[in-house]
């Protein structure tokens, strides 16, 4: 896809570099909107965005709904996780019900890989924004991570992100650590970073790597300590105990010992190394509490950037489509 304009956002896999840069640049203008006293523009006035969270995630839902509201869209928030819609309800029935309310877009989080793509087949006239599907993709997280990296590197170089396009990513060394097997964030991050031109390495206990990495444009770091020294950016992943990570590593303590960002490892890091985590953090597991609070961590920025990125995605995807008002 060369541009997100008028399209659904299901995965970052098929987004071109120019499409990703366009989203990042658009998000940059929304950063400014979010700094205004009145943080709202009428771009999606009269449009209806449904937020369908089959799996609860207060952070992501709030971030999306805030984004939609700042674009003046009407938001239908359906907390599917707590309703009767549980396992066994046909996705087609659920989306048909919501579609009958008259929606332009749906933001969807689901515990099954591919659910957003399936839904987009059932309602081709609705823009579907994947807010995380199973272990497949979490496109807006990948975009906001790339956005955050570009923002920080641009500031250091005394330039602005949009002026750099994807230039700041050329040769940038990014290390992704942790539960890659179960992580939709990792899949989207890798797509975003690699498409933009960065080099990506991954580090994890063998059991937390995907079964077959040949479809991933990454290399596996055999030595975690060396990889940490190599990296400009260290992206930590949440250890997904709810997805049964427990049986993939002997103990959390052992995971921390082999692949956690402990205070000792953090002290050896180049102070400029950017530390990221998509949250929610298991403090003391993936990362030591004291490292979370270091100035070089970008974790707060990632949260802040969630809104402008999601505004950009909704704006590009939804504006300029549909009936004339």
């Amino acid at each position, binding site marked *: 896809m060369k541009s997100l304009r008028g399209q659904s956002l299901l995965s970052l*896999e098929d987004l071109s570099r120019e499409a990703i840069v366009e989203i990042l640049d658009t998000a940059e203008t929304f950063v400014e909107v979010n700094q205004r006293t009145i943080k709202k523009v009428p771009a999606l006035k009269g449009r209806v965005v449904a937020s369908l969270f089959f799996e609860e995630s207060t952070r992501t839902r709030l971030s999306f709904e805030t984004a939609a509201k700042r674009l003046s869209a009407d938001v239908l928030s359906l907390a599917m996780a707590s309703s009767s819609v549980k*396992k*066994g*309800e*046909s*996705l*087609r*029935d659920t989306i048909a019900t919501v579609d009958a309310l008259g929606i332009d877009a749906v933001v969807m989080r*689901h*515990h*099954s*890989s*591919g*659910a957003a*793509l*399936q839904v987009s*087949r*059932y309602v081709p006239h609705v823009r579907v924004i994947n807010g995380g*599907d*199973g*272990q*497949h*993709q979490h496109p807006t997280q990948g975009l906001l991570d790339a956005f955050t990296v570009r923002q920080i590197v641009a500031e250091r170089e005394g330039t602005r992100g949009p002026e750099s396009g994807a230039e700041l990513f050329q040769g940038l060394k990014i290390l992704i650590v942790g539960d890659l097997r179960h992580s*939709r964030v990792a*899949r989207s991050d890798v797509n975003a970073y690699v498409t933009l031109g960065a080099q990506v390495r991954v580090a994890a206990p063998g059991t937390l790597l*995907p*079964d*077959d*990495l*040949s*479809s*991933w444009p990454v290399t596996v770091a055999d030595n975690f300590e060396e990889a940490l020294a190599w990296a400009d950016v260290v992206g930590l992943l949440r250890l997904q105990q709810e997805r049964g990570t427990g049986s993939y590593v002997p103990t959390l303590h052992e995971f921390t010992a082999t692949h956690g960002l402990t205070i000792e490892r953090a002290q050896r890091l180049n102070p400029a190394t950017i530390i990221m985590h998509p949250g929610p953090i298991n403090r003391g597991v993936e990362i030591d509490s004291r490292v979370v609070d270091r100035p070089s961590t970008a974790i707060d920025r990632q949260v802040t950037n969630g809104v402008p990125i999601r505004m950009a995605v909704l704006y590009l995807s939804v504006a300029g489509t549909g009936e004339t008002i």
Partner: protein
Amino acid sequence: MSPLLLRQGLVVGTSSTRVADVLVDGGVIREIAERVAAPAGTTVMDVEGCWVGPGLVDLHAHLREPGREEAETIDSAARAAAIGGYSAVVAMPNTEPALDNAALVAYVLARGATTPIDVAVAGAITQGRRGELLAPMAEMAALGVRLFTDDGMGVQNPSVMRRALTYAKPLGVRLAQHCEDEALAAGGVMNEGALSSRLGLAGRPALSEEIMVMRDLELVRLTGCPLHFLHLSTARSLALVIAARREGLPVTCEVAPHHFTLDEGALSDFDPNFKVHPPLRATRDVEALRVALARGDVDAVATDHAPHAPELKDLPFDEAPAGMLGLEHAASLTYEALGVGEADPITFFSLLSRGPARIAQLRAQDERVRHGAHGAAMLEGEDANLVVFDPAQRWTVSRDSLQSRAVNTPYNHRAMTGRVRTLIAKGSLVVDEGRLT
């Protein structure tokens, strides 16, 4: 049925073919000759260019009755089978409840008897297909059951499988295994590999199938009981079974059309219509299956026809049930796999009729209780379960015009070459010009 004369088709025997007229009368092949004079009142069909051979036999069909009549009934499945050219199907026992006793087997046989084709039954190996206690195989065998399987799930416990083989051997029946080690498959929903890792779907490794093939080959070696391997899907599984058969072990195997026509790439869009167990495999496996088919290394093509109600295939991919329709397009897909215009008709009927009839013990020489004979050698005097296959006919699959109650075909809108034109089963003309009579 009035006498029927099939004029100038290619009559496909067990080792040779010839263009001839075939006269069917009184439920048997009355005469095969270069020219047969039609007696008065004979219906004459010009079948020049078509293959005339034994009606097809499916070793592996899920008829869903009792228990899942919203997806399929014995009647609707029989009609789908007839359109697909089958004069006999073997009903799998994973119904609800499972076919694990004589009463349930008798029920299915009775319902099957009212359909235009022969419905044979495979009984369960274990009670409730739970893989723990042996089902009463002898009482089912007394009703004519010749195949036993827990299909849908392999018998996981090697000790139970050993016991089943030991128990079944003197009954003169054959066990059939769905080879997947569920512990190794670990809840996977597609083939394990680069694609599953990319899509974030849990994988079922090829090894989960192969390891059970290895185990069962050794159990056959130990017990001497014949075993049939259901829907083998990997190159390695097939190679293992072929080598064991050469060694003299009493083993046979089948492959399913979806495994030799589709690869895992079909899953890129998360369409649950492509979800099946064992899963669609890598391209190299598909290639290996096609090579084995053409070489005659495979004993049978079996459909694994698995209807599911539409709402179940609208579930998220990981929650949707596995399985796809097969009866109505298996013959065309097999013909295409053997090579359009190049396929050897003898191999075609060996895979789709004579091989499966032998495994299911449905031939004239098998001691069957109630069924007519299938898998004919195309000799005068044999039961007239016959099919006319037109290798030149082109058609397009449409889920809207299937005989099956379900619509979960992975081949919707696919253009096909070769189609069943006529089916004669149980002494009647069942399909004429591709339509049920």
